[in-house]
């Protein structure tokens, strides 16, 4: 069967000593930075992004993917032990995970989080491998109009699922789209909105923006908050959950995986949404529902499985359609473009080694997390004991050197500083940076497809509703917006995000 031949190709690539090493290094560094309290996976990825650029494309993406799930995993560790969610996706892990830790059962909580992530990762890898071929086939039917409409749908999804006020998310998308257009116009070669700066010829650097907004800004804001970090003591020998507990968790894990796999593919979806939904569902269907919020182990297993599955299947739209569904995937697109790979359906056919290699490495990376990270939990715990004031100067230096190394120009450092300050402003006024980065990445792509579609239709915007697939995608986007403004949904949404 094709699937297995493809996976075999993938494993052949991923199992070379060098790639195995980069996968491990990515997972390790990702966990290391992800474990730091208050540092979200997206921040981790943004900061570490530049250090993968010097590698060959396949190794670079393998390492980035490793950083990605390492960061997710590290975030859960902090959530359980310190009750500081690194990111929204681990907020629900805090609920029961930290309760377990308080009851002296931090070990089983950490172990079940890792096991659930691995189970989900294994299944999600298979889902990606099976879903990719039909998705790619579909993508090849896409024309400029369909691509444009698909991006509209993706951005709408990002708005609907943004945490803050949706009307601000809309604005952030628009600002992102606008800034994405800075630089030389590919069709005519004329520089646009560059203020005469030659450094802006290729557009505003993607790395300075990402690191500025997610690294520098987050640091500045985090340092301003009072640091509450009461680390719970815990012993390594209490690491393993009992068999009875693992058995209890299996259905929770599978339900979480299924839900996460579906939600991850949706535009705007991904880890955070999946974990919330899985927790809510588990609370309803679990026989142990009364325990939820008081240290139920299923309350850790389900969302952890879901967030890993969702995180992984969110690669599907990226790898097959070339459209990032969320901000983290937008960073991946940026990384691929810097590597000279234009994400899209042609990647799978033109570079099967890269495509399947990355997919196979996802499974290997998950395996490494469980085999290597569980014994190293002691190390992560000691890392949590290092005071934050000794940690963040290192992050500042990493941000600077990372940004500088991309183009060897100080201009990028100033840009990073500007976007860092801007990022603080956005955080303070309650505007999420995630829709912005998505808009920024999609800006040029959207404009190109818009222009092409309009050119082909001789200037008639009807083309977007006359083509059936395009019309369907736009209808979905409209439906999402309508749902968003319905009062009942609005209230429910506020509840979910508050929880």
């Amino acid at each position, binding site marked *: 069967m094709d699937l297995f031949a493809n996976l075999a190709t993938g494993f052949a690539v991923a199992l070379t000593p060098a790639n195995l090493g980069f996968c491990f290094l990515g997972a390790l560094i990702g966990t290391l930075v992800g474990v730091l309290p208050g540092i979200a996976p997206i921040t981790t990825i943004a900061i570490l992004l530049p*250090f993968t650029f*010097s590698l060959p494309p396949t190794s670079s993406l393998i390492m980035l993917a490793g950083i990605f799930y390492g960061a997710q995993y590290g975030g859960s560790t902090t959530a359980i032990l310190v009750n500081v969610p690194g990111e929204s996706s681990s907020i629900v892990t805090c609920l029961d995970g930290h309760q377990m830790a308080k009851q002296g059962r931090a070990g089983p909580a950490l172990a079940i989080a890792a096991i659930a992530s691995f189970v989900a990762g294994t299944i999600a890898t298979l889902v990606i491998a099976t879903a990719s071929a039909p998705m790619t086939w579909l993508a090849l039917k896409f024309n400029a109009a369909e691509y444009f409409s698909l991006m509209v749908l993706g951005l709408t999804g990002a708005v609907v699922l943004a945490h803050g006020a949706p*009307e*601000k998310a*809309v*604005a952030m998308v*628009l*600002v992102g789209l*606008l800034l994405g*257009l800075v630089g030389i*116009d590919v*069709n*005519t070669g*004329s520089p*646009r*909105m560059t*203020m005469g700066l030659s450094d802006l010829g290729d557009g505003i650097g993607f790395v300075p923006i990402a690191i500025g907004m997610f690294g*520098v800004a987050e*640091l*500045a*804001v985090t*340092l*301003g*908050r009072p640091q509450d970090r009461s680390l719970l003591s815990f012993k390594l020998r209490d690491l393993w959950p009992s068999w009875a507990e693992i058995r209890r968790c299996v259905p929770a894990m599978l339900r979480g995986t299924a839900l996460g796999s579906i939600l991850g593919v949706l535009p705007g979806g991904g880890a955070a949404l999946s974990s919330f939904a899985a927790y809510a569902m588990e609370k309803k269907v679990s026989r142990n529902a009364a325990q939820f919020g008081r240290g139920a182990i299923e309350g850790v297993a389900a969302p952890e499985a879901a967030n890993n599955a969702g995180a992984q299947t969110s690669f599907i739209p990226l790898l097959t359609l070339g459209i990032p569904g969320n901000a983290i995937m937008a960073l991946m697109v940026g990384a691929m473009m810097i590597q000279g790979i234009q994400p899209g359906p042609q990647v799978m056919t033109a570079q099967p080694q890269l495509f399947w290699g990355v997919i196979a490495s996802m499974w290997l990376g998950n395996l490494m997390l469980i085999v290597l990270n569980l014994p190293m939990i002691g190390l992560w715990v000691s890392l949590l004991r290092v*005071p934050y*004031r*000794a940690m*963040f*100067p*290192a992050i*500042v*230096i990493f941000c*600077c*050197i990372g940004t*500088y*190394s991309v183009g*060897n120009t*100080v201009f990028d*450092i*100033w840009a*990073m*500083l500007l976007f*860092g*300050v801007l990022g*603080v*402003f956005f955080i*303070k*006024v*309650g*505007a999420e940076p995630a829709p912005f980065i998505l808009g920024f990445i999609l800006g040029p792509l959207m*404009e190109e497809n*818009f*222009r092409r579609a*309009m*050119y082909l*239709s*001789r*200037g*008639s*915007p009807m083309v977007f509703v006359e083509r059936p697939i395009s019309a369907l995608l736009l209808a979905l986007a409209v439906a999402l917006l309508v749902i968003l403004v319905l009062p009942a949904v609005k209230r429910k949404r506020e509840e979910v995000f508050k929880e």
Partner: protein
Amino acid sequence: MTLRLNVPDMAFAAFLVALGAFAFALAGELTVGTAAAMGPGYVPRGLAILIMGYGAVLGVRAAFTGQQAFPEIAWRPLLMIAAAVAAFALLLPAAGLGITSFVVVICAGFAAYDVRLRENAMLGVGLAVFAVVLFVIVLGLPIPIWPW
């Protein structure tokens, strides 16, 4: 209806209007073209107008959505981190990575309210050595280590 100003919303709206106006001015010299044959200025201008208009709507709304003050900004962390990044940009071309890293770490260290001088100095030396070894010697980034 009484005027109840939501300051953060108003600030965001003002930012949008200003950004839109700025972009509109910058894109002003670009050819707009027609819908069938768009020039380089078509989409940027459209977006700039959209952002301005949207910002204006948000601004009007912010005037009536309830009194809310601008959230407090922790100035010390923000300024010291900004200073550290600026120091990196200014020093690196002249002083090399070693000295620059040291200065950046010292500067960033003061962003924490509980900074300790001795600890910070040691951290500065340690991280400077670490950065030079990792980035220049191991990873081979083309950055000078010393000013000379």
